[in-house]
């Protein structure tokens, strides 16, 4: 079993968020969701806010990443994320409030609204809630 493992690293500006061996890692890119097994072709891709699932030998771990990019090299996957959080680090109430705020801003459509930014905020808030369910 052990020969289908590869190294996974998630690095944020503040810390090395995760470092370990996994048999599969799934995450969300701007082009859609992607799952990586060992000996994937070399790939650099841009992350979209989403849930990262790391399937280790015996258990699977979930985390949330927002913005960044991933580098896949045969036996190593590196995720450079601007923000990464474990589910237990997320404040559900805060995420809900952020969701409301973002929805409100999007529904009002005021002239100076930065739509992409508001949508991104909404997406982040939703992803944060998703991982807790």
């Amino acid at each position, binding site marked *: 079993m052990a020969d289908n493992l590869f190294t996974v690293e998630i690095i944020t*500006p503040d810390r090395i968020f995760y470092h370990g061996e996994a048999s599969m890692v799934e995450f969300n*890119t701007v082009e859609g969701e992607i799952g990586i097994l060992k000996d994937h072709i070399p790939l650099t*891709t841009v992350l979209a806010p989403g849930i990262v699932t790391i399937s280790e030998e015996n258990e699977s771990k979930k985390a949330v990443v927002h913005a960044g*990019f991933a580098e896949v090299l045969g036996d190593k996957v590196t995720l*450079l994320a601007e923000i990464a959080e474990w589910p237990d680090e997320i404040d559900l109430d805060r995420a809900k409030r952020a969701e409301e705020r973002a929805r409100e801003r999007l529904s009002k459509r005021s002239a100076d609204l930065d739509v992409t930014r508001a949508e991104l905020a909404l997406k982040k808030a939703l992803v944060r809630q998703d991982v807790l369910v």
Partner: protein
Amino acid sequence: MASMRDIKRRKTSISSTQQITKAMKLVSTVKLQKAKNRAEQTNPYFNYMYQTVCSMLAKAGEIQHPYLMESESEKKAIIMITSNRGLAGGYNSNVVKLITGSDISLDDAVIYPVGHKGEEALLRKGYTMASDYSDVIDAPTYEDALAISREVLDAYAAGEIGEIYLAYTHFKNTVSHEPTLLKLLPVEVDEEDVAGSSSDILMNFEPNEEEALDLIIPKYITSLIYGALVEAVASENGARMQAMDSATSNAEEMISDLSLKYNRARQSSITQELTEIIAGAEAIS
């Protein structure tokens, strides 16, 4: 020779100064430890970022991208990172000297100051200032770096500035800090690094190289700014620690010098008194 009282007063004032410098040294030592840890934790992120950008550029040789090409505008933005507080030896003035001594002329430069000390010094010399980010340096976060990079990149995209530089103090180790001027845009990476990373693997990009560049270069710039902020904080505290250390030992030296002078003055005043008493006694008898 100064009177005993004067010497004594001087000594007291110096030893109270010494107490202050000693306390400041202790404070900056603690802060340095914290800042150093943060700088070390930021390093892996930055290194990966640099490697990835190198390997992308190795493949992106023929791509015509605004981030990679010379721009027409003569204006050069400089993000200057200094401290808000003084008493850090040559820390602030070294960064200022780096900018005034560079090839960037006064008229072309637009400064984005982080830290009041450098801002004040360059304002006196007549440099143009853009928005001020001085509050950031007390506790830099990634969001702060994001705000700065967003603003300069917007100005770059709008053609207001043609080049972006970053002036900060590189933290080599606790005792050695190096003022550094780094060109952020158009991107320039070490040719050797580019060649080295491209040799063996063929990297695929998703979305295509151009779009990926569009998204990754701003992140690269932000991570550079963040790294510079964190290193600058470490350097600032290192510089202050050194400055306060030498101030404390200078005070020590002065105090021992003054003690010697004081004792000499005391001795000569006693000798003089004795001579006067003996002379008086002789005159009576």
